[in-house]
């Protein structure tokens, strides 16, 4: 037997981060061991190894020669970039840290009591200036507003924040308010509006930290980076040295990178319901669910603790997690979207079995048609030319003229593949777009795509949108999809069940109108 098969040596790796991922890569570049946390000891055969430590998007490497004795490697704290100006993170200045800590403890705007939302937005420019980056944004809070649940402006953060333009500018606003659902809205230079839910929980301060991002090609397109937001919860202002905040930030980056980055003791705290930081519980639950490290009976402990901290039936993301336990485990109705995308997709899927979960004319149903952005936050975009008070019908058929068509085409393709008749709903753009956004809809009958010899235009009919008058109907349209069709359409369209049902009802009406061969006089809402 070779000496190496008998002799194992210890390699001890010390990091300075609870959430540091540690990879041991052997002489053949194979990852032979992994760990997470402050201290990991690996038992290895003699050889040359690379130790790689990663936190967020930052990593460090060191080669280690394990020859005839155990070795120890230490890594200093990795300054991963974070919009929250935590100590020992990248992309921050001392004056940002000081400002965030002090301003979070003041009240800048008083709109209620019991909770608060603290928004701290800043710019950060690297020391090495580049032409692409340009000067710092002197007004990093430009275009930012805090809205109430109904969409009314509560605080114009652009005007009401305290700001400092020296160096890399920052702006801060701590709004004292009643617990509840709010929206953070950002108006871009193009006039488009991006929004996301911010939940204010009783007894907690919700802290939103933002850097800058370019939404276009010009410097004037720079605005707060909502996609990369860091959102923390605290009972007593922002503490840049709080190690739990650092762990929460690492967990957020874990969601972005789809990597489970929580160390063993943090996992145990979450699974035993012994965490006191709700965001760690919410992020942690999602990370563990994605990594299949959590069973439903344990998830119920996590949900129970989150409800203890944030209130029962108060936080949409907590109640979305409760839905994983079964639809009877929560009575929460999602009038408003949750904060996380992962929560949203769980809710959408849950509507297959519980139709009223996302009511049709709710904010959640309306934003479902406009989901935008990427992990981890759920955001939606309203383009400049659409009035925000349009109903879901108008949003579906006017702003997103394709979405109804896409959902319907999808269903048609299914029919086609099953050998049914294929219709394609094509959209003819009128020369000018009137205020009511009227559209003409042309129905073309096509041959089957499989085995067909190409498109044959057998029949065309022009129909304008909206609900047909009853006398135009020759047959009563089907009003309910079967469960299997419903599941397919919810999954593929990404829309809650009620939205899908509306689109499908429209399709049925169009089909009825086409078969009736009767021109319809239909008006678009708002005309």
């Amino acid at each position, binding site marked *: 037997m*070779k*000496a*190496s098969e008998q002799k194992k040596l210890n390699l001890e790796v010390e990091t300075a981060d609870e959430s540091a991922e540690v990879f041991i*890569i*052997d*002489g*053949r*570049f*194979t*990852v032979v061991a992994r760990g997470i946390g402050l201290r990991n000891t690996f038992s290895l*055969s*003699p*050889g*040359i*190894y*690379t130790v790689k430590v990663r936190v967020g*998007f930052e*990593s460090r490497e060191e*080669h280690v*020669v394990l*020859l005839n004795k155990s070795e120890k490697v230490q890594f200093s704290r990795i300054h991963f*970039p974070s919009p929250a100006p935590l100590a020992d993170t990248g992309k921050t200045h001392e004056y940002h840290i000081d400002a965030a800590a002090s301003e979070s403890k003041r009240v800048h705007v008083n709109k209620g009591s019991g909770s608060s939302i603290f928004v701290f937005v800043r710019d950060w420019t*690297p020391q*090495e200036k580049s032409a692409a980056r340009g000067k710092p944004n002197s007004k990093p809070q430009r275009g930012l507003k805090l809205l109430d649940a109904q969409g009314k402006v509560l605080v114009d953060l652009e005007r009401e924040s305290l700001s400092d333009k020296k160096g890399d500018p920052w702006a801060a606003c701590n709004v004292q308010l009643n617990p509840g659902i709010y929206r953070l809205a950002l108006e871009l230079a193009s006039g488009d509006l991006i929004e996301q839910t911010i939940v204010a929980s009783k007894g907690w301060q919700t802290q939103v930290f933002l850097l800058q991002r370019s939404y276009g*090609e010009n410097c004037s397109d720079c605005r707060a980076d909502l*996609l990369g937001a860091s959102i923390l919860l605290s009972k007593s202002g922002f503490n840049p040295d709080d190690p739990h905040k650092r762990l929460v930030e690492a967990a957020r980056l874990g969601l972005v990178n*789809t990597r489970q980055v929580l160390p063993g003791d943090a996992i145990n705290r979450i699974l035993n319901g012994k965490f006191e930081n709700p965001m760690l519980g919410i992020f942690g639950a999602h990370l563990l669910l994605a990594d299949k490290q959590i069973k439903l009976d344990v998830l119920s402990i996590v949900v129970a603790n989150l409800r203890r901290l944030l209130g029962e039936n108060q936080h949409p993301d907590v109640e979305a997690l409760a839905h994983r336990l079964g639809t009877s485990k929560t009575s929460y109705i999602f009038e408003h979207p949750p904060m996380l*995308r*992962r929560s949203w*997709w769980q809710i959408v899927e849950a509507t297959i079995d519980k139709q009223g979960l996302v009511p049709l004319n709710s904010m959640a149903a309306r934003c479902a048609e*406009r*989901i*935008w*952005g*990427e*992990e981890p936050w759920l955001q939606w*975009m309203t383009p400049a030319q659409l009035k925000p008070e349009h109903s879901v019908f108008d949003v579906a058929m006017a702003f*997103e*003229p*394709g*979405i109804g*068509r*896409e*959902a319907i*085409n*999808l269903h048609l*393709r*299914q029919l086609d*593949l*099953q050998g049914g008749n294929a219709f394609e709903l094509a959209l003819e753009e009128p020369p000018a777009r009137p205020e009511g956004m009227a559209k003409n809809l042309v129905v073309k009958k096509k041959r089957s*795509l*499989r085995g067909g010899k190409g498109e044959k235009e057998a029949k065309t009919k022009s129909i304008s949108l909206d609900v047909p008058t009853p006398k135009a109907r020759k047959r009563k349209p089907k009003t309910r999809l079967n469960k299997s069709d419903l599941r*397919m359409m919810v*999954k*593929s*369209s*990404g*829309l809650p069940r009620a939205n899908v049902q509306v689109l499908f009802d429209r399709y049925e009406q169009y089909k009825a109108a086409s078969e009736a061969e009767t021109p319809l006089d239909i008006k678009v809402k708002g005309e």
Partner: protein
Amino acid sequence: MAQNDKDYAVIIGIKSYPDFDKDGPLEGPENDALAFRDWVISPTGGNVPDDKEHVALIVSSKYQPPAAIADDARPMIIDVQGAFEKLQNKAEENAAKGKGLQVGRRLYIYMAGHGFAPRDDQTALLMANATRERTGAVYHILGQYTADWFFKAKYFEEIILLMDCCRELYPVMGLNMSFKQSIAPGAVDKVKRFYGYGTKWSRLSREKNINGARRGIFTTTVIKALEGGAVDADTGELTAQSLSDYLYTNMEKLLDDAEKKIDDIPKEPEIDYYPKKGKGFVLLNVPIPQYRVTLSVPPAALGKPAQILDGAKDYAPAETIAAVPDPWVVNLTRGKYLAQVLAAGLQKVIVVDGTGDVNESF
């Protein structure tokens, strides 16, 4: 050597997007698709027969003249989906001939172009006629959904999916999940998969000039790996695990120092493969390449005995010399080595990572 006539490939590289090109065209996707196709049909690579039945190559330049407006731009979904439907038809033909509902051994799916991630578990390649307002079901193809469809249907024994797309932020308008589900018994356990994604690039960061051509960083690294960089130097096998490890370790090496500091530029791909036990599965056997290592030796060590020890083989000598010259040039396989001139008290770790020749000094 007999060709792998039971292997098939659908290779898509879209560089022309009339609606997006005003922000700066992508050049790399077509170059990358062609490079991957070259590897697939190469006798020392995938060794797949170079014919239309086995290799579907769908690239922008195939459609001439280039479309001025998005409405006319190709390839469209019908071009791409048609390639997959042909494979589905082939399975049905085989079933009708009594050969079972299957197509072959391995399916390569390669996609490069503009992409977006409508869900955290799905990445989409946008078609040429997509616009910022039109990204719905008939304007994109989903990589994982398509690969998963073929694995669940068990039409192939192995599925290799590679996506090299830049990441765009668009409204989510519904996913193209238009294949009727077909689940074959035992598919989950029997069909081997390797899915690799370099899909979090911004438009600016996805590609750079590499050897005079615009090339994607992810695809360039993949091809280097498949050409031998990722081969196990002990067995000559290129496995799912060795490919995955190579990509994780080496993709960053194509970035310069300034690029490495930019958060928007991903340093690692996303990889998933099955089975996960041991080395995964063997993708191919490749002659074990050697790399030229040039070691500068200081005057104090010249003429003294020197060794290069293999750090993966219990420090067995890989090279030994009685009187070391300057420079000392050797050929080594991929691995980590310890060079030493004991008489001069010199030691140096040398890493031969499979990306190319190495220059080091004590």
